[in-house]
């Protein structure tokens, strides 16, 4: 049994000439709620995508539970950025959440009663049962974010990666989403979140990664989230 649940070793990612991520080494233990913070263009989303094999790194590897991503996919959930999809797509809240079960079903087979119950459950967990049949373009930003969260909950994963799940939501929805994330942690899940708001890092998270192409520091919030490290991460502006 490896000591760390997620291990990233020597990972470098480049789209064109300039590297987006440089020589990333990161070890995340089980059962933490970790924020990834850093300035715009620091490579926060890319880090998540590279760990999920959605972006191919030039070098380096990622291990989950000591094994490679593909053998562990079943235990990994993902919440992409809300803007990454066309919300005018002809589908309903229920349908989108049901998509979270597709990975467990596999190719060709259709979701059955069990999957539909799971989807219903997840919709209730994020408080969207009123909107279950609503077309997704009729949702507010916060509601869309909750739909994406429900879709990930349905995956019933052990590790969750979330790309800015608090982006464009109001204060009440933000609190509700954070409560769900903290409950996931309480249940022994590991949650990695790309986060924008430095003010709330200490309140919401117990681990943090400070990223600016390279990893500046990572670890417990109370140990690494301080002014000196933030200055290095964000330059002199903070």
């Amino acid at each position, binding site marked *: 049994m490896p000591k760390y649940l997620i291990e990233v070793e020597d990972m470098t990612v480049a789209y064109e000439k300039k590297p987006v991520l440089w020589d990333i080494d990161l070890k995340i233990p089980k059962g933490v709620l970790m924020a990834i913070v850093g300035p715009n263009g620091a490579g926060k989303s890319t880090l998540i*995508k590279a760990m*999920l094999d*959605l972006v191919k790194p030039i070098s380096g590897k990622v291990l989950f539970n000591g094994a490679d991503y593909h053998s562990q*996919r079943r235990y*990994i959930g*993902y919440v*992409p950025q809300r803007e*990454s*999809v*066309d919300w005018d*797509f*002809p*589908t*309903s809240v229920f*349908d*989108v959440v049901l*998509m979270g079960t*597709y*990975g467990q*079903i*596999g*190719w*060709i*087979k*259709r*979701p059955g009663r069990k999957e539909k119950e799971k989807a219903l459950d997840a919709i209730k967990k994020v408080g969207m049962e009123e909107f279950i049949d609503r*077309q997704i*373009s009729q949702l507010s930003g916060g509601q869309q974010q909750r739909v994406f969260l429900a*879709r990930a909950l349905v*995956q019933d994963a052990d590790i969750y990666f979330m790309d800015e799940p608090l982006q464009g939501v109001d204060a009440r929805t933000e609190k509700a989403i954070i409560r769900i994330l903290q409950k996931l942690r309480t249940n022994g899940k590991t949650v990695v979140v790309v986060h924008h708001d430095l003010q709330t890092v200490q309140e919401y998270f117990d681990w943090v990664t400070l990223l600016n192409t390279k990893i500046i520091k990572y670890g417990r919030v109370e140990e690494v989230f301080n002014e000196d490290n933030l200055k290095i991460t964000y330059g002199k502006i903070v």
Partner: protein
Amino acid sequence: MISIEALLSDYTLQIVTLGSAMLGVVSGVLGSFAVLRKQSLLGDAVSHAALPGIVFVFLLTGIKQTEMLLLGALISGLLGTLIIISIDRYTRIKFDSALGLILSSFFGLGLVLLTYIQKIPNANQAGLESFIFGQASTLLKRDVYIMIALGTIILLIVGLLWKELKIFSFDPEFAQSLGFPDKKINIILSSITVVAIIIGLQSVGVILMSALLIAPGVAARQWTDQLSVMVILAATFGLMAGVLGTVLSSLVENMPTGPAIVIVISLIVFLSLFLATKRGLLWRHLQMRKNSRAINEERVLTALYQLALNHDDIYHAHQTAMLNPGEAITRKADKNIVNSLHALRAKGYVRSDYFDTWAITDAGIEQVSRIMVENGGEEL
């Protein structure tokens, strides 16, 4: 002109129409996905780029054998698409420029080759130009059987991979994270779309084939917010266009099938754009007018109520001009208020006492308190 009755009992036409029907269904189904994935123009590129392939194969073989011609169409269509995608990926030229460039240069090459062919003495070349605008009546029975077989296979694939196609079209990245690689699904979807385009070339033609692919999906999207309904509707629209277009073109001598089909499907698109109940322009306009009327009525009633609050006698009547305090009274605003007042009177919420003076009723006061609760519980 042939009489419709004679036409409908014509065996050849029946077979040809069957082919067009299948083509319409398949185009509608696959076009729905192309529309949703915002890849409407790729089909246009494939079909235009197919022309030089058709003519080139004829130059090589000297005979008009459908399978061989369509194979040539397939190869040059794919080649054109490949070049477009490569230009977009490896140069600084943008996708739309690459598309326009390749589409027209391949089509131009096709036309040049076609002109050259017409100069050489070969009795067989006649009819090759019908690939430009399409001529369903040139279909042989065997061609139609091939269309039906390929169409059935395509529909089967879509049915089996329904869930995968749906998640891929909506959120390819998430699909990949679940173990449905977007590259794999993209290849499957693109391949069957290209096959559908190729089998449509003979009856619809290289220029207009993309319209039969895209238009049914666009029309269907106006009527529904559900993918399955959209695809079924698009298939139905495609079928209607295929059948009606083919019959239309056989009614008039020398009328190519492609334009006839496109006219029918365009009609369906325009009707859908205006009349559809989900997103149609007319329906949305009416809905918006209804909404603004309702809001205006609420506003006027609330204003009347507030005026009443400042009076000892709640039922004191006020002039219309009083109801728009602080605002310059334009003629239109004035008219809107009067219209709202008349509507409110019809509902019993206000009373008109004398000429142009209005008072709130008990029912009106009740309604105001309901409005206020709905709008976040303002204090009364």
